[in-house]
C-alpha cells in the first residue's frame, strides 16, 4: 500500500490542481487495475462496508498506546480525525507488512465475519506492521471519508488524461451505483456504454453566485429567469420502468421520497429530470425545516407524508426518449418539459418569470422573500447543460442576507483544519441589559482574523466549561442568515438558518449590538 499512501500524501501536501492531477495520473498509469478501481471508489465516497465499529477501534488503539480514555478523546477532539488520531498515538511499527491497497481491503472483508477478539488481533497486527502514513490510510479504509481536496471533476480529469477519453464521458461513467465488487476498471471506464447501470445519473451543472450587475450579462432577451427555491437539488431518472431519485451529493434517495415512486407510470422510459426537491403545500413552499425532517428520517410515516409532502420543481431535462440531450440549447430542452409533466402532480414546472428589462427583473428579485424564494436564477437560453461548477451560463442571484450585529460570548476550538484555533463562536443580542445567545457561527472570517481572535480569546477567558470558553462580551460581529423562525427550543425563542459571520465590526462597541426585539421585528416583517 506504499504507493497509495504516497499518493494520499502527495495529494494532501499540495494545493495545486495540476500537481494533484499529475499525481493521480501517474498512480493510474502504474498501479494494478484492482488498486486503481479502489482508489477511484474511495475518492468518490464508495468505501468498503464498515466491518469494525469506531468504538472498538478507539478502545483497541488507546489500549495499545496505553492512554486513558479521556486523554484519547481530548486528543481526538483536537486532531479532529479518528483515523489520524489513532495513527499518531500508536507506538512505532515493529515490522513491515507489505500488501497492496486491494489486498488490504480483501483482508478487511475476509475478517468481517470474525469474532471481536480475532478482529482485534488482526487490526493490532496490521497497525504494528505499518508505518504511520500507511497506518493512517489503513484506518481510513475502515472509518471512511478521504477528504483530500480531490473533487469528482479532478478524478475525471486525471482518468481522462490516462485513458485518453473525453472528461465528460469519464465523469458520466463514474456516476451512480457501482462499487469495486460489482465492476472492474475496464468495464467501468472502457466497457460498452449500453451495459452501463440503468440508475446512472448525469453530473449536475452547478450555478455561480452573480457577482456583477446583471446588465453585464448582455441583452436580457438572451436569458431566462426563474425563482430560486431552498430545497435539495435532485435528479429523477425513469429507465426501463424503474424510478431512481438522486441527490446532488450523489446519494440514491428514492426510498425517502415515496411521492415519486409511481412516476414510471406517467413518465416515458428514458427520461431524466433535474430540479429542486422541496416540501410544498397547495401553492406554497414550506420552510426548509420541513424538508429536513424528511431527509433525516430513514422511513417516512404517513403522518410526515401528510405534514410535509414533497414535489420536484423541475427546471431541466437531460435525457428524453432515451437520448442524452444535454448538448441541446436550454430553450429546446425545455420544450420537452411541457409534454412530460402532465399527469404527475408531484412534478411542478419551474416557470420562467416574465420580465421586460434587467431593471424590471431587479424589482421582481427584491420580492423573492415574499414568494418564499431565495432569489432568482438566470440561465442563458442558448446554453447546453454543462457539468460541475462552470461559470458563464447559470447564475444564482440571491437576495442579500438578513443581518444583525451580535456579541461573541462563547468560543470553542475547531477540529481538523481548524485544530487549536478558536473558530466556533456563540453570539448573543441584547434583551434589556442581558445578552441572550441566539446562534452559533463558524465561518466567514479569514484565517488571519481567526488567529487574531484566538490570541484574544486566550487573554479574555472569563470561565471554562470543558472545551468552551466564556469570554469578555466585547467583540461584535455582523451575522448574516438566510431564514428566521420561531423556535421554542432556543432560549432566545428564534432560530436562524445558515448563520455566518459577514465581518468583524471592530468599529462597534458591544453596547451597540442589536437587540432581541430587532430580531423579532425581522421575523414579524416576514410573516406579516
Amino acid at each position, binding site marked *: 500500500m506504499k504507493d497509495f499512501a504516497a499518493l494520499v500524501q502527495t495529494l*494532501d501536501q499540495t494545493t495545486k490542481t495540476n500537481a494533484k492531477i499529475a499525481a493521480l495520473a501517474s498512480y493510474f498509469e502504474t498501479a494494478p487495475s484492482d488498486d486503481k478501481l479502489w482508489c477511484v471508489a474511495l475518492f468518490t465516497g464508495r468505501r468498503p462496508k464498515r466491518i469494525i465499529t469506531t468504538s472498538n477501534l478507539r478502545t483497541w488503539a488507546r489500549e495499545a498506546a496505553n492512554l486513558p480514555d479521556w*486523554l484519547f478523546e481530548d486528543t481526538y477532539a483536537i486532531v479532529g480525525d479518528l483515523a489520524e488520531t489513532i495513527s499518531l498515538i500508536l507506538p512505532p511499527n515493529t515490522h513491515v507488512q507489505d500488501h497492496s491497497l486491494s489486498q488490504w481491503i480483501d483482508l478487511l472483508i475476509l475478517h468481517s465475519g470474525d469474532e471481536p477478539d480475532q478482529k482485534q488481533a488482526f487490526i493490532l497486527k496490521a497497525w504494528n506492521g505499518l508505518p504511520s502514513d500507511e497506518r493512517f490510510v489503513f484506518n481510513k479504509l475502515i472509518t471512511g471519508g478521504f477528504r483530500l481536496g480531490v473533487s469528482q471533476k479532478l478524478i475525471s480529469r486525471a482518468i481522462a488524461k490516462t485513458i485518453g477519453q473525453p472528461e465528460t464521458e469519464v465523469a458520466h461513467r463514474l456516476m451512480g451505483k457501482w462499487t469495486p465488487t460489482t465492476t472492474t476498471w475496464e468495464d467501468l471506464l472502457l466497457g460498452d456504454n449500453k451495459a452501463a447501470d440503468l440508475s446512472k445519473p448525469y453530473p449536475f451543472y452547478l450555478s455561480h453566485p452573480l457577482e456583477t450587475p446583471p446588465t453585464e450579462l448582455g441583452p436580457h432577451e438572451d436569458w431566462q429567469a426563474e425563482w430560486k427555491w431552498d430545497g435539495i437539488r435532485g435528479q429523477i431518472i425513469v429507465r426501463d420502468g424503474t424510478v431512481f431519485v438522486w441527490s446532488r451529493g450523489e446519494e440514491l434517495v428514492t426510498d425517502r421520497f415515496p411521492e415519486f415512486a409511481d412516476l414510471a407510470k406517467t413518465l416515458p422510459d428514458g427520461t431524466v429530470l433535474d430540479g429542486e426537491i422541496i416540501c410544498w403545500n397547495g401553492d406554497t413552499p414550506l420552510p426548509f425545516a420541513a424538508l429536513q425532517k424528511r431527509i433525516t428520517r430513514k422511513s417516512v410515516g404517513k403522518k410526515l407524508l401528510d405534514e410535509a409532502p414533497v414535489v420536484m420543481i423541475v427546471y431541466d431535462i437531460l435525457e428524453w426518449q432515451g437520448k442524452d440531450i444535454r448538448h441541446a440549447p436550454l430553450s429546446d430542452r425545455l420544450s420537452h418539459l411541457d409534454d412530460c409533466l402532465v399527469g404527475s402532480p408531484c412534478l411542478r414546472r419551474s416557470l420562467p418569470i416574465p420580465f421586460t428589462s434587467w431593471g424590471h427583473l431587479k424589482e421582481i428579485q427584491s420580492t423573492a422573500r415574499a414568494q418564499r424564494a431565495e432569489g432568482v436564477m438566470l440561465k442563458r437560453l442558448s446554453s447546453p447543460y454543462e457539468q460541475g461548477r462552470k461559470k458563464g451560463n447559470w447564475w444564482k442571484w440571491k437576495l442579500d442576507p438578513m443581518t444583525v450585529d451580535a456579541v461573541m460570548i462563547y468560543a470553542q476550538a475547531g477540529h481538523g*483544519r481548524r*485544530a487549536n*484555533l478558536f473558530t466556533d463562536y456563540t453570539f448573543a443580542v441584547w434583551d434589556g441589559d442581558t445578552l441572550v445567545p441566539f446562534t452559533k457561527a463558524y465561518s466567514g472570517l479569514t484565517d488571519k482574523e481567526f488567529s487574531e481572535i484566538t490570541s484574544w480569546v486566550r487573554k479574555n477567558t472569563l470561565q471554562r466549561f470543558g472545551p468552551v470558553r466564556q469570554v469578555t462580551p466585547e467583540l461584535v460581529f455582523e451575522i448574516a442568515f438566510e431564514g428566521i423562525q420561531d423556535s421554542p427550543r432556543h432560549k432566545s425563542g428564534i432560530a436562524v438558518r445558515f448563520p455566518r459571520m459577514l465581518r468583524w465590526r471592530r468599529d462597534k462597541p458591544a453596547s451597540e449590538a442589536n437587540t432581541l426585539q430587532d430580531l423579532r421585528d425581522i421575523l414579524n416583517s416576514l410573516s406579516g
Partner: protein
Amino acid sequence: MVLQMRQAGLYCPAGDFYIDPWRRVERALITHAHADHARWGHDHYLATPRTVAMLYHRLGEISAQSIAYDHTLTIGGAKVSFHPAGHLPGSAQIRVEVGGEVWVVSGDYKTEHDGAAEAFAPIKCHTFISECTFGLPAFHWQPQAQIFDEINTWWSDCAKDGIIPVLGAYSLGKAQRILAGLNSDIGPIFTHPAVEGTTEILRQSGLNFPTTRPVTKDVDKATLQNAIIIAPPSATASSWVKKLGPISTGFASGWMGIRGIRRRRAADRGFVISDHADWDGLNTAIAETGAETIYVTHGYTEIFAKWLSSQGYDARCLDTEFQGEEDAGEDST
C-alpha cells in the same frame, strides 16, 4: 513561594526579579531570545552570553549582563543559575533556590540534541514550571536526521524540476538548525535578511553553519539555480517570493504533524520538526527533575496538567502570555 505570578509575569520576591516578564520591569531574567519571552523595555536584562548577543541584535541598546551556564549568582535572598534548555543556542532553564527550596523555570525546551543548541540537561528541583506546547500524545517527533533527509530530497527534486524551494522556518533557532542539516552539495543556500541577521550573530558567537547568501528583491535570478531559500514563515507568502518564478513552499514546524493544521497552512510541504519537546520528551524531562509540583504553561495546559495529576504529580496550569510555537505563520523573532 519561591516564585509567584504577578501582573508583569513570574516574580521572585526573595530576589526582586522577574523571569521572562511580559510587562516592563526593573530586572528581567531571560530564558531565551524569542519575542514572547524576551520583551522590550526592561531596565536590566540577565541572560546567557548567546542570548545577550541576540538581545542586543533584536532590542538595540539595552542594559544587559551575561551569565555562563551552570554558574551560580546570588541575587538578594535567591541563588540563581542558568542551564541548557536545548531549545536554541543560548537558551536556558533558570534555577532559583530560596532557603533550600528549588524551583526551575523551563522556558521553552527540547530533549533531542540538535548539534547547535547546547544539549538539554534535567535539573533536580522541588517545583518545575514546564512549557507544554506539544503536550498531547499525538505529537511524536522523528529523529532530526530523518527530517533533514526529507528536506534534502525535496530540495534536490525541486532542483531537478527547475523549481525553487522556499522553506519557512523561524529566523532564530529553527532556521539555523535546518541550515546545519542541509546538504550544500545540492546547490547554494539563500536566506531572507531576517534569517541572515540572526545566523550572523550566532556565527559570531562561535557556531558554524554552511555558507549562505542573503536573497533580496533585486537578486539575480541566474544565481538562484538549484538554490534553496530559508525565510521566516510570514515571508514565504510575500510578493517578492512570488516574483522568483516557479517555487515550492515548505514549512518546518511541529504543528505540521497534524494534517488539519498542515492543510490550513497550505504549504506544498510540511516538515515535522520542532524546537519544543514532544509528548515523550515532556514526560521524560518532567520525571527527571524529580519535582513533585509541576506548573504547566503555554500549550495544551489543562489536558497536560490533568494527565500529570493522573501520574501522581501535583500539577496545575499557569496562565502566561507565552505563545510557544506559533502555527499561524507569525515569526517569533
